[in-house]
């Protein structure tokens, strides 16, 4: 693979603005609305789309259902579902299919009404399923938060990481959220208390949900959705906005194994693959869109992606280093406000691509000056047990 290849580019994006649709819109409707606005953003139309990438959030028989709903007859259907990282996989597969000449315009969509459905994603117990994993684990009552909390506890044990260091993730993200009107509206609609920039003390003094993770280290549960249009180079050159090129991608899995180390995520495998393919080093990255389900997710992924050495993430993030207005200190983190403070309807991966694209177009509400390179890293599944990693390196001309 040629370094800095220009095989495919993100040419259209849309982030569905509402985080609380009050039961008045369906996931399918959110997907269709987002698709139309993203195509409009690109200067394209429904009839230009010849490839569909879908994680099944619109219902069963995913590829067929959504094709009919959109009124499309795609040449390519890819229904990869790896949780919140699905959209990084979709972007990687769209680029691959376009590079192979099998598609020219790919459409990725997401819609969720998790908040309206009152889904207790984070603290719901898991019912007794029929999959062998569920049959071995459901009896223990491991909530989603406690799954991640066990990764955090182990990280603290092995490397001396502190709650104050983890809190830096939350404060940097909220710093960006307060500059994003959609994020502020989201926090109002979801009835966050005391909506403002937070301090490390605010975070560590917030209520413990599952030791050692506090409330302000946990993502919100919103409604929402979005869409991404990815196109071949000749199409991209004629689109309305400047292309954001997909320079490199990586995929990896992680699950419990005898003697395994839960402080290391699948990003340790997907990250180097993506950076190598892109011909880019982590210290060249201007914007890091990292799946922030919880504070510990970001700390772990920053290390695994190579921004700092394993175990040194705690010290590395101290002092507000991850803010957008500190470009000399390395990448800005989750400049839209992240899943912690802007948008998390269950599978956040698409928003990582959206904000990375806004940054590389110069359209962010926490714009990094002259941003040229971004990474979007999705973690799908659960950090402390089993998950998929999808890394996408993006760059502009």
């Amino acid at each position, binding site marked *: 693979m040629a370094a800095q290849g220009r095989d495919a580019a993100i040419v259209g994006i849309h982030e569905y603005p509402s985080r609380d649709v009050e039961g008045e819109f369906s996931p399918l409707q959110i997907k269709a609305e987002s698709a139309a606005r993203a195509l409009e953003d690109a200067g394209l139309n429904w009839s230009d789309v010849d490839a569909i990438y879908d994680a099944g959030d619109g219902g069963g028989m995913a590829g067929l259902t959504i094709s009919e709903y959109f009124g499309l007859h795609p040449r390519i259907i890819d229904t990869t579902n790896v949780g919140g990282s699905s959209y990084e996989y979709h972007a990687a597969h769209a680029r691959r299919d376009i590079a192979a000449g099998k598609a020219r315009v790919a459409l990725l969509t997401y819609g969720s009404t998790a908040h309206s459905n009152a889904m207790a994603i984070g603290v*719901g117990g898991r019912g007794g399923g029929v999959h062998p994993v569920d*049959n*071995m684990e459901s009896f223990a*009552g491991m*909530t989603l938060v*406690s799954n991640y909390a*066990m990764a955090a506890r182990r990280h603290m044990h092995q490397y001396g990481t502190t709650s104050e260091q983890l809190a830096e993730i939350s404060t940097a993200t909220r710093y960006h959220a307060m500059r994003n009107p959609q994020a502020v509206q989201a926090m109002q609609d979801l009835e966050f208390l005391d909506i403002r920039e937070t301090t490390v003390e605010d975070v560590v003094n917030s209520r413990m949900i*599952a030791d050692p993770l506090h409330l302000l280290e946990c993502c919100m549960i919103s409604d929402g959705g979005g869409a991404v249009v990815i196109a071949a180079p000749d199409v991209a050159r004629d689109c309305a906005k400047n292309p954001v090129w997909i320079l490199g991608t990586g995929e990896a899995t992680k699950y419990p194994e005898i003697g395994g180390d839960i402080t290391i995520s699948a990003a340790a495998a997907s990250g180097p693959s993506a950076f190598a393919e892109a011909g880019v080093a982590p210290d060249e990255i201007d914007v890091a869109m990292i799946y922030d389900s919880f504070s510990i997710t970001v700390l772990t992924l920053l290390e695994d992606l190579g921004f700092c050495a394993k175990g040194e993430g705690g010290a590395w993030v101290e002092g507000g280093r991850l803010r957008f207005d500190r470009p000399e200190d390395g990448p800005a983190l989750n400049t839209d406000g992240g899943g912690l403070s802007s948008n998390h309807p269950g599978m956040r991966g698409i928003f990582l691509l959206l904000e990375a694209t806004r940054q590389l177009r110069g359209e962010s509400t926490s714009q990094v000056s002259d941003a040229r390179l971004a990474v979007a890293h999705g973690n799908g599944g659960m950090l402390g047990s089993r998950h998929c990693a999808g890394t996408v390196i993006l760059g502009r001309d």
Partner: protein
Amino acid sequence: MAEQPREPQRPLPRLKELDTRAFWEATRNKELRYQRCDDCETVVFYPRRHCTGCLGSNLSWYTASGKGSIYSFSVVRQSYHPFFRSRVPYAVAWIDLDEGPRLLSNIVGVEDPGADLTIGQQVVVEWEEHEELSIPLFRPA
């Protein structure tokens, strides 16, 4: 089991699940079992029909001592599940059995799970009996 008609119950494994049924059937006799391949000696856990280390399926069952250590843990303080909500705060933990397998369970028999547990702490299985099977919980050794 005492009669508790309206008490929320712990979600229990299903004995019909084909990969894990032999594991759960053995818990009736309070045996904590795991598989090892006769051909390549790979320890397989969670239980499966096939070996993940070679292409065979000559897996034999072994009974673990029930001793292990805490690999990591968390104290759950909020749960919406009808049973677990009534148990907060409680400890969930990954337990490394002395024989190798790492399994998820709860740590019981401590007054304050937030203060009384540490990573690396030695633990031993404590069975919670149910009608058709027993649940392997752990307490400090």
